[in-house]
């Protein structure tokens, strides 16, 4: 076991959690993430191997699927982000690669991103102040790409109207946290 301590995207030893009014903004460093991109002409192979590895079919555009440890959301044509608990899947890329073989290109993305789980009453009002995503209409399992605070992000709906995940570039986690916090405070 190596002896290097990890820090969170916000620079702390532990994940930060804030409660502002009825809203919770929680840093979540607990998911490992890898990109999965279909190689040319290998769509059928990927579909089959992914179903076997994850236990579900890779989701359609705008959607997220999950089962057990694994979750995946669509990010582009033939592209998904695959996630699993960091504990036990820290070196996620070889695990996915072993299941997909040469049908897909797999790249570790875990620390390229910062994940904020946001929820509570008013969370939709908060998101409306941040991005053009129709968060009020999103259903659990909806996942989309958008821009928040000038940053390319993913917004995932975990529970309709109540719980969402915002995934942003890790180096800008502090700016995103600031944006989320002031939006939460400005809800009238």
């Amino acid at each position: 076991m190596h002896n290097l301590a990890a820090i969170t995207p916000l620079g702390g030893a532990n994940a930060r959690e804030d409660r502002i009014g009825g809203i919770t903004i929680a840093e979540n460093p607990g998911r490992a993430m890898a990109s999965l991109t279909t190689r040319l002409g290998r769509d059928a192979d990927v579909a089959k191997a992914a179903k076997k590895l994850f236990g579900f079919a890779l989701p359609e555009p705008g959607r997220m699927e999950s089962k057990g440890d694994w979750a995946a959301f669509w990010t582009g044509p033939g592209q998904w982000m695959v996630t699993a608990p960091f504990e036990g899947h820290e070196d996620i890329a070889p695990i996915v690669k072993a299941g997909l073989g040469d049908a897909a290109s797999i790249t570790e993305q875990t620390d390229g991103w910062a994940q904020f789980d946001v929820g509570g009453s008013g969370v939709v009002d908060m998101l409306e102040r941040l991005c053009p995503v129709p968060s009020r209409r999103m259903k659990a399992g909806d996942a989309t790409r958008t821009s928040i605070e000038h940053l390319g992000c993913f917004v995932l709906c975990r529970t309709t109207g109540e719980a969402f995940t915002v995934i942003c570039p890790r180096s800008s986690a502090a700016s995103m946290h600031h944006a989320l916090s002031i939006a939460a405070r400005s809800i009238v």
Partner: protein
Amino acid sequence: MSQINRISGGQIDRGNTLNFSFDGKSYQGHPGDTLASALLANGVLLMGRSFKYHRPRGLLSSGSEEPNALVELRTGARQEPNTRATVAELFDGLEARSQNRWPSLAFDAMGINDKLSPFFAAGFYYKTFMWPKAFWEKLYEPIIRRAAGLGSLSMEADPDTYDKGFLHCDLLIIGAGPSGLAAALTAGRAGADVILADEDFALGGRLNSETFTLGDASGADWAAVTVAELASLPNVRLMPRTTVLGAFDHGIYGALERVSDHVAVPASGKPRQTLWRIYTKRSLLCAGSTERPIAFDNNDRPGIMLAGSLRAFANRWAAVPDRQVAIFTNNDDGHRTATDLLARGVRVAAIIDTRADAPRMADCELLAGAEVIDSKGRLGLNSITVRMAGGQTRQIDCGALGVSGGWNPNVHLTCHQRGIPIWNEALAAFVPGKNPTGMSVAGAANGAFSTAAALASGVDGAVRALADLGVKAKAADLPQAEDAPINLKPFWYVKGASRAWIDQQNDVTVKDVKLAHQEGYRSVEHLKRYTTLGMATDQGKTANMGGLAIMAEMTGKSIPETGTTIFRPPYTPVPIAAFAGRSAGADFRPVRLTPSHVWAAEQGAVFVEVGMWKRAQWFPKPGETHWRQSVDREVLATRKSVGICDVTTLGKIDVQGTDAAEFLNRIYVNAFGKLAVGKVRYGLMLREDGMVMDDGTTARLAEDHFITTTTTANAVGVYRHMEFCRQCLWPDLDVQIISTTEAWAQFSVAGPNARKLLQKIVDAEHDISNEAFPYMACGEITVCGGLRARLFRISFSGELAYEIAVPTRYGDGLIRAMVEAGREFDAVVYGTEALGVMRIEKGHAAGNELNGTTTALNLGMGGMVSKKKDSIGSTLSEREGLNRDDALNLVGFRPVDRSRAFVAGSHFINKGDVANAANDQGYMTSVAYSPNLGHTVGLGFLKNGANRKGEILRAVNPVANEEVEVEVVSAYFVDPEGERLRA
């Protein structure tokens, strides 16, 4: 004496009193008041001075169309100029001031302009200040700016915050008057997602200002009951104090919500205003209509206002400008004002109706076929002069005059996508023409002026809009309401009038319009620019029709032939701060922090902005008082032993696929096909035009897996370029790319002791000796007892150097571990300045050299452009002009007198030549003080530079009027043979 002009009734909360001040004098009003209504109730009619002539002005209207009553609100940093008193909601402690006057509103010294008015006609500035040209900026403009202009700025930073937001709905209803409320009721009950927005703080529109009944209820009560029902529907969002300011592409609307303007200071954390972008499936414009005045001489005196506004103040706000009024109208609606005022105990001296066959509708004197031709009174109206039907004149005493020239539908938003309104002869008004996609119009905005017609058209509009969306809506039951027909005879201005104001905000008179015509300005767009008619905060809402009617008459054309100017967003003024939202000051844009940021901040590092990144520029030690001391120390220690630098900001792109090597072959000028697994190669990338785009190293981790690096500045641009190539140019290649810039914390470890330091970090099973891991080797390793990591033996400094990468969350741990491991070697951590010094000493090109105008040949890398394969830019790099004998070459420079310094940007001139563009020999791109050599060194592009080593030139800096003699030398100041990096 307080509120002398307050009458009974109205929708104000008399149980509560609000204190406010105007020009330092204290007054009282009530919740429900606007600043305008409260001032009127207190007998204050004089509210401002006009823009050009400084004429005394009062209210013309009661709404957002107000041209005159512009005031400064609040004090200190929150002071805001040019606020319309008619839309400023009264709050306790409000401080308001008149503007554009000196020394006081009642006595304004600049009123002299009014006496000099013959000189200030349309086009005055254009004609007068043409000569001499040089006088404009220094003399004329400052004088004009002082005399004209409106409010003043505090010059302090705005302490408030502004939000931006995004909303989605099935149906956006713009305006909550009778048509908007009826539409919202219909669509809301049908379950559609509805947004109902209105600029007023009280929803109801004219229902709050009229005495009509709807069924058994007053208009205001029906509106209140309807609003209450709408508020109970979860699918309806009510947005009072929200102006829909523009109709944009694809059903998108902009709206400004004044969240906190009705309180003294916004609640903590709350925005002052929110700018909403509203995505709609359908929209229904229920924006109502605006009354238009009739122009006659001296029609701008305080007390003369629109008739509909006069009764709005009386009915809604229980305030009248005077107890004796008169009415001047060309239509039946003007008579309603008389009826309403009479019912409230106000004397109506006479109704002057321009129509000879005017109907008798109110119980007061009616002067049919008569015209108001002049007014009298010093700072407010005392009397009017009326030309009777028979031609004789008559003086009528009155303190207020209500004027009605008819009503204009508020078609503005229908025109934001270049729709052109259509003239309706029966209404003598423009009505909507072709609306933006998805928009329909109801109520007075569509020419349905009666209450019954407005209600019905609102219901119909909602039913149709929802039917478009496949929703069947049941029409709301409508109450019985007035349904009076429009009865109007167009009358724009009194013949013979000259100083009759068309546009009160810009001081444009009937005479000015005629003058513009006389001078050849026939198009309404030219008329607008020449006279300023219809410009500024009110955008001519009460002025445009009058102006173009006169222009039509002058040119002998009809009004529709003359046409209108183009309506553009915003509908009413929007603070620039609202467009900025939260992106202001330090939050202007997000920042990017490096993995070692926490550690660097602990060390007291000085940070520099590099794009959005904050990078450590240098790390000052105790006793170091000048940045050069820190930088020199970092450079010397690195070259002597070992230095560590966070280089995470360089772009990293993961390239995979069976065609990954072929893909790289096509985007880089040099070959990558035969790069062995476990090796790194420097690559140069050209734009299509043959100029250098970027450079970097590419490591091959597997046959089908590469990691390409980019410069920090071009990380996004190169990734975008590669995506374009992959998706659009060569979709047949099997290649997948994704950015991993942030996923890995990467550090450069450079200097003679770099290997020794890393051997303490890299796990023992990985041999990193020179034999096992030579220059340009790479590999996947583990560090610190098993953490996956990547090691690249590459060097930017020219030293024995490595770049080591770990997952970003461990970057902080790794730098701490390396600093600890480096203690025995006196290791330093260096910043971007030392990095820059060392790369200049080594002659490595960076952003200064890859400046978009340079070729591989210029950089001394022409030989890298492979002729054995095609790559982007290789063909155009062969252009004759780019390959001349005297092409620029990158070479080094040092001062002949070693004690002298020169600056980047200097141009090279041969000794004895005049320093001008014709004699230009090239330019200096990068300069640094080399602590190793003890003097300044530079890199630059010199004509035929490769063959001019040893030549003495002048580095000329015309900006500072300085020049330094320099010697042309090799760009490799340190270790020209490259022995260190292979050690």
